[in-house]
């Protein structure tokens, strides 16, 4: 009952954001509002890996294997007006995040939460759409199952998405990235530069997200962003190797 009231509020908020109404994808926005008002959008290249095609508000997502994937998940939502915060990841490569499409003006970093990890994360879940817990943070703070459940509950109540760059007990959705090969380096050595990487993103989860999904993308792609893989992967890679 109260959930539906909140989600109408969320819809009103979303539609009042600058950029949403002016964007050319009015139709897409309308469809999203009507069908899935509770989804935060992700880049279209990645949506196939997510059972719902987006990040469900109130859910907890574990993202393993690639930080680039983590940034890419934040990209679409931050450019559409959502705020994101990254907790306990002091070595974040903000340039890479920007290249992957994150609006860094809507990104806050809490490099060292120290002893205040739980209150800090809770406060952020109260006010932001996306909160990321850095890798190793859970282990370092030896969070008990009860504490992680508290965070999950907080996210659910506030309609925020909690992303953990780690295994997170009870996560609704688990995304796992298997790194593939890098392109752009010359085999003879010394020439070229790292240009793009083919990866496979596996998504699996519980409940509505139970159906496992898999998608191949270039992460990062040629300009640092997310890109669809080259139509015939093997051929292109052979061409690259030759050239």
């Amino acid at each position, binding site marked *: 009952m109260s959930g539906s009231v909140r989600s109408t509020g969320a819809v009103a908020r979303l539609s009042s954001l600058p950029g949403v109404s002016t964007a050319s994808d009015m139709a897409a926005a309308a469809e999203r509002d009507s069908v899935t008002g509770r989804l935060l959008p992700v880049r279209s290249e990645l949506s196939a890996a997510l059972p719902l095609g987006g990040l469900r508000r109130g859910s907890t997502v574990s993202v393993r294997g690639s*930080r680039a994937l983590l940034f890419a998940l934040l990209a679409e939502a931050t450019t559409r007006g959502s705020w994101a915060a990254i907790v306990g990841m002091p070595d974040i*490569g903000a*340039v*890479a995040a*920007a290249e992957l499409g994150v609006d860094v003006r809507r990104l806050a*970093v809490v490099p060292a939460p120290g002893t205040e990890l739980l209150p800090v994360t809770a406060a952020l879940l109260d006010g932001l759409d996306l909160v990321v817990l850095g890798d190793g943070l859970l282990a370092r703070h030896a969070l008990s199952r009860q504490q992680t459940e508290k965070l999950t509950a907080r996210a659910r109540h506030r309609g925020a998405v909690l992303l953990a760059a780690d295994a997170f007990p009870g996560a609704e959705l688990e995304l796992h990235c298997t790194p593939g090969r*890098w392109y752009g380096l010359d085999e003879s050595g010394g020439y070229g*530069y790292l240009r793009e990487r083919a990866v496979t993103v596996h998504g699996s989860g519980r409940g509505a997200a139970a159906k496992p999904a898999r998608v191949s993308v270039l992460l990062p792609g040629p300009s640092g962003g997310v890109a669809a893989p080259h139509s015939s992967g093997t051929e292109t890679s052979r061409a690259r190797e030759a050239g």
Partner: protein
Amino acid sequence: MLWCPDWPVTAAAAAAGVSPHVPAAVFAGNRVVICSAVARRYGVRKGMLRREAQSRCPDVAVLASDPARDARLFEPVVAAVEDLVPGVDVVRPGVVAVPVRGAAAYFGGRNSPDAAEHAFSERLAEQVSATAGVECQVGIADGLFAALLAARRGVLVPEGRDAEFLAPLPVAELDQQGEGTAEFVDLLRRLGLRTLGQLAELTERTVATRFGQEGVLARRLARGAAERPLSPRRPARDLAVEQHCDPPLERVHTAAFVARTLADRLHAGLTAQDLACTRVGIYARTEGGEERHRVWRSARPVTAHDVADRVRWQFESWLQAGSGARPTGGVVHLRLVPEELVHGAALQLHLWHGAGAAGEMEDDPGTERATRAFTRVQALLGPEGVCTPVLTGGRGPAERVEFVSWGSPLDRAGEQAPWPGRLPAPSSTAVPARPVPAAVSDKERRAVSLTARGALTSRPHSVAVEGGAARNITGWAGPWPVDERWWDSAAEGQRARIQVVTAGDGPAMLLLLREHGKPQWIVEGVYD
């Protein structure tokens, strides 16, 4: 920071007409609160019973404790300092804080900063002894706490070296006058933590679990950090309170009464907005149109009572000053201004409305909610606890981003300029905050370095990060020379970057060669 040793004794002796060469001590509740250097030589100590003090030193002059008197007699000293530098803060009677940077540059002339600070501190001590006839010691440091300890030792701590200066000092220094931390200090000592450095080395977590809030504060002080982070933004609404006085205030008692009600109003205004104040300015205008003001600073947030006391002391010193310094008429207008604010327990958002982000985001309800969350986190961790990345100019991955405390003014000028030599996108997703050493070697396990012509001495074959197991390199690119800071003699030799892809599931990395002789590589970025 300027410190007059044993000020209560000096003041009391001056008020009672006791010569400074006579041993003297100030007593409260039959115990020695503080004693003069002469008395100390006779074996009189703080906390001693009066009878015991007198048995050690029969001629000791017994003086009563009176903070108002101390404050009143301190005023000439403050005035003397103020003649030299504007913007003086009184920490308590006997201690004055002075902003040094600008003043040192002014008085030090063209000397190096250190010499300038030295010249300035001499000048300050001279000025005080010549004008006010009082001995004092000067110390310079970045933080208030460190500066106080520096002044006691007459030390000038170089910029940014507060923590180093504090490290060897005993933990007893945490127990500043009457702040009731004696028990805590005693506990630390019994646990074997004898110096501030040892306390500073503990993690915040350990300190918080063992000693609670008090321990966390003490650790902050020991690390040379501010006791409480300053409020990151000035409040939009004016919190100052003022009062017109008719008839004019000419007597201390009536002034004290007005001060009390005014201080209550100031305090109520602050608590209503959940703020507290660590520096309060007292401004007064007299019938004759003279303006007087003085700023009082306190290490912890002042209560209404503290403010009232300070106003009363200030009035005493103004109204009972010598003929030259005394205002010509009564005070008709009194104003209290909170000069420096710290957060109370929680925060009210409307104060921070329209936070430091770009203008177009201000009206957005999401931004407002986020701002509230960030201010809440800043209240927990301090203003530097929440940062926003700002892309700036630069070539290396670490140089291209600046992390700015949330709410600080942003400057995005650098990004537009061309930066030749910058690596093309994609950039590394992890940029280690501290340099991570790596060893790059070729097939024969020789270290890879750079030739005089900027080429690698041999093909890199494996890389070991931080002394870990060596990983084979499956692909590499570079070297790209880093032609930066050729004017900086400390950065010797040419530096260069290479990108490597490691075998198996290993990450791709960006490595920077720093030194040639004994080649030293560091991991500048990880692509993962």
